């Protein structure tokens, strides 16, 4: 049995994109290759931007971790090992508002100033959300703004191996349990999101956000639980 390293409870917005395949592939170490989603609401996505508001991260002993709270954006590439076909998600870059989370265990996080405004208005079964997140560093930043009508979320559990782009040997297993509400999906024809604006002006990601990228799907995650495990 593998011991839990930490657990995280948070809320998220996940934006899946289709970006330049060569620009993604050249970042990956051999023999990993980009593996975009083949089907479903995220079909065609090969880059994931995850905006997280961490409510509490606890260490293995249940105590608040140094990075117990956070407001962050993380950029991920879904991949597969060309020889073994093992899937893994490479963590490419993270922007964090918590000084104790930079550079982080995966060595990819930079410290930013963060601002978020979220308004939820609901009456009976209808809920409308506006969300605006700004993460700003000296050399650029990330901005997400959207408005959406919330739907009935789907409870989903999954497990992922996450590896660092700067050192694939830095790897952990994430076991997640979440409520996922896909508010926009081009492949599935879901269009409950409006006024979506995603601006990524982070110099190391410039070739991924060169204007040719397109949003494939957006998922609101109002409830998220993750257990982080060491890789055997």
């Amino acid at each position: 049995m593998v011991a839990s390293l930490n657990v995280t409870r948070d809320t998220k917005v996940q934006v899946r994109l289709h970006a330049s395949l060569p620009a993604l592939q050249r970042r990956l170490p051999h023999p990993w290759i980009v593996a975009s989603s083949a089907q479903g609401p995220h079909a065609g996505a090969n880059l994931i931007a995850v905006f997280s508001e961490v409510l509490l991260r606890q260490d293995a002993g249940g105590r608040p971790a140094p990075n117990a709270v956070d407001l962050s954006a993380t950029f991920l590439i879904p991949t597969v090992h060309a020889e073994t076909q093992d899937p893994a998600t490479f963590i490419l870059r993270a922007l964090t508002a918590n000084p104790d989370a930079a550079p982080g265990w995966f060595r990819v996080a930079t410290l930013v100033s963060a601002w978020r405004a979220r308004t939820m208005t609901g009456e009976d079964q209808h809920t409308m959300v506006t969300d605006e997140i700004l993460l700003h560093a000296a050399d650029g930043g990330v901005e997400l703004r959207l408005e959406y009508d919330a739907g009935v979320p789907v409870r989903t559990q999954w497990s992922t191996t996450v590896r660092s782009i700067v050192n694939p040997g830095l790897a952990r297993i994430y076991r997640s349990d979440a409520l996922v509400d896909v508010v926009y999906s081009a492949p599935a024809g879901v269009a409950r999101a409006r006024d979506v604006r995603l601006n990524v002006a982070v110099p190391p990601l410039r070739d991924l956000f060169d204007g040719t990228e397109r949003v494939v799907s957006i998922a609101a995650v109002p409830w998220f639980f993750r257990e982080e495990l060491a890789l055997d």
Partner: protein
Amino acid sequence: MATSGSAPVLDSTIAERILLGFQVRPEVLQSRLPAPWRVGSTPAGANLVVIFNEVFLNQDAGGAPAPDATTRYLGVVVPGRHPDTREEASINLRIFAAHPQAIPGKYRTSLPAVVRREQRLVSEGLAPTVEEHCTVRVSEGEEIDLRLRYTRGAVTHVPTRSRGRSSADPAVLRVYHVDQLAYTVRDASKGVDHVLDFAFRATVAELSDLFDGAERLVTIVASPWYSRRVYSE
């Protein structure tokens, strides 16, 4: 299917909640409890708890979305104690629920209401300021209205187990296994008070003896991350 000992899970809920703990005249509470239950109190000294629930997902025993999968409701409960068995349970007096499929509900105490909630959360760095405005309209002129603003600090992981019984039929028992994050906005017993603005008004006729001006707010607890499984025993 998950079980608690030999008891199967009845249902599960993932939500966000605000709890208000009041001290009200015990005699008016006692008159509402089924015999032989006695009025108790929470660790913070409240003998009446009002809970605003924003339900992201209700699931049935098999994990499928329940008929009232997403909803919002307000619960009114009294911490109770059975003098013979020494059982402690939250006695559900009333629920005002937005979803028609939640009537009369598992405790058989639910009435329909129009439930409105507006939440605004602004984070500058890592400490958000939260504004809440919840309105439960039971009928024309009968409302429960909460306005609350506070700056949220470090939340605490508070797993709990508790028992709920119905004032309409105390044989109805629901055993809660809760995993939640909680932030104590106010606890008069500990001198904690992070409230920036607060207003509460209840003009519902059937609650008029509970909120007659003599009630005293003692606790406010916000739970921005809440998950529970409910068992039959």
